[in-house]
């Protein structure tokens, strides 16, 4: 009974049953420098294309200024889109989850930790894998995430592709630029999944450098103290 309930619940929630993990397409690794400029560009694209539905609630707006060096004006005009947003608040989408669930069948998930959970290759490939599918309510399907409820929000940039990759309608940017855009969004989501990366990788060399000096001094001290033991051993041996 419990199993039946579980399957029913999964079906309702729009999750594919675990066993249905059919031949997944090969995931493509994005190429980007994980630096503040890339992440900022990704944040702006995210705000324009994704933020209407998806939250990144653990990231407070303030962080974009303090962590990423985004000018306050840009932050207020381009990122803080919900009308009542305050700088110290988390980036919560303006769309109410209960409305979203009604409109899309499933509430769009919070994406803060998506890159941790799915991996950056998955996100990048997913963003690039939408194709025209008249059978779906949105008119689009996805090679990486079968029968996804999400519409192809990047379609104006990428254009419309057929299932076999054929271009049905050209997008507003070149395919190369679109790859860069998708990579920037991926970089942003990598940042939201673990903002400490910027801080810890900057701090790492100092900590390890300090420890290296400490260890060398400890080694020198050990050599001095142990000299007596080694001398004693060679005397006993001779």
């Amino acid at each position, binding site marked *: 009974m419990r199993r039946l309930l579980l399957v029913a619940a999964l079906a309702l929630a729009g999750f594919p049953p675990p066993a249905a993990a059919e031949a997944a397409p090969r995931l493509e690794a994005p190429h980007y420098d994980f630096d503040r400029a890339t992440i900022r560009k990704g944040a702006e694209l995210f705000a324009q294309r994704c933020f209407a539905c998806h939250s990144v609630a653990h990231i407070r707006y303030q962080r974009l200024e303090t962590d990423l060096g985004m000018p306050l004006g840009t932050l207020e005009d381009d990122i803080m889109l919900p009308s009542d947003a305050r700088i110290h608040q988390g980036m919560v989408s303006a769309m109410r989850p209960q409305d979203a669930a009604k409109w899309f069948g499933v509430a769009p998930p919070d994406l803060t930790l998506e890159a941790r959970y799915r991996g950056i290759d998955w996100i990048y490939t997913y963003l690039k894998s939408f194709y025209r599918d008249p059978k779906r309510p949105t008119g689009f399907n996805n090679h990486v995430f079968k029968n996804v409820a999400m519409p192809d929000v990047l379609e104006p940039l990428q254009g419309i592709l057929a299932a076999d990759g054929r271009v049905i309608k050209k997008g507003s940017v070149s395919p190369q630029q679109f790859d860069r855009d998708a990579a920037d969004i991926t970089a942003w989501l990598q940042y939201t*999944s673990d903002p400490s990366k910027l801080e810890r990788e900057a701090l790492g060399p100092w900590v390890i450098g300090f420890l290296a000096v400490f260890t060398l001094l400890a080694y020198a001290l050990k050599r001095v103290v142990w000299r007596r033991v080694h001398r004693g051993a060679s005397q006993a041996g001779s």
Partner: protein
Amino acid sequence: MSRVLAWIDRRFPLSRLIRESMTEYYAPKNFNFWYFFGSLALLVFAMQVITGIFLLAHYQPSASKAFDSIQTIMYDVKWGWLIRYLHTTGASFFFIVIYLHMLRGYLYGSYRKPRELLWIVGFVIYVCLMAEAYFGYVLPFGNMSYWGGEVITSIVGAIPYAGSWLASLARGGFGIGTATLNRFMAFHAVLVPALLGLLVVAHVLALHETGSNNPDGIEIREHLGPDGKPLDGIPFHPYYTVKDIMGVGVFLIALSLVVFYAPTVHGLFIETYNYIPANPLQTPPDVTPAWYLAPYYAMLRAIPDKKLGILVLFLAIAAPFFLPWLDRNPRAKSIRYRPVYLAMVVVLVACLLVLGWIGMQPASPALLPPARIGLALYFLFFASLPFVSRIEPTRPVPDRLRM
């Protein structure tokens, strides 16, 4: 200064403790690489307690808040990421250090008479550590936490007659929820660490009673100088304190490399599936344990029958307990003089590594035969040791230590 010390010494054995456990505790002078891990285990224990206290200041043990409180630590608490990564990395490093420490015991026969109790106390520490790690693993209440909690408490449920009652006692209800988190936090933050602290004291007391073994497996106390001190012994302080401090430096560099550059170690130290909140309706594709328990999990899965599998699991965990009485070589303890025993230990370690790898893979029929071979060889080590150790070829053991 000396007057203060005298005042204290009249009321508390401070100087005597320092003398007996540091400046006049004579340790064999030929400790090698393998002897760093005892003091390092103590260091990690201290680090886990300290980082744990900081985490406890922000963690909320309830089903609806636990996951978000961990994220609050990661996103909003100043240096929260450092504290949490130190704690998660520390957990894995604790096991690395303890496994190397135990392997040292195997290599040099440190469990042999008169150190049986020392070995057993250490073994109990290891079992407590597994419990500690398990309770801690459930607390963040990600989806792996949830299903890991479910799987292990269902092992309790397999106990005949009282099983289902015990399982709901362990969970605090029929499923894993707030009650489970509350009791697991009590165990993880109070009960088990307190036990560990006491056991560590007992372990060190037993060590100082028998004296340390060494890579030659010879008793240095059997060769005393005219002053009554072991000829091959040197005072723990300053010799081994300075040496251990050097080990601490190398250890902290390794720890920092993980904490600052690869804190999840590709899902090995922090599982990917623990980054979605606990969800009773969504089983992760493969519920596999953390790497340090993976060999046991592979053994459990290698047995088709659930109850028999759990029995084998407990036997596998308990087997090293009996090691002092299984090894019966009358002439030597250390692998330096026992080539056959050395080969057996190498096979044992290889088995555990392979089983560990299998335990982290999705369940698959193709992996059953190697898992069963590994399981058989694991038990063969313990089953054959009483016989092999009595007849194995033994090289002549010298009287005195080799540097």
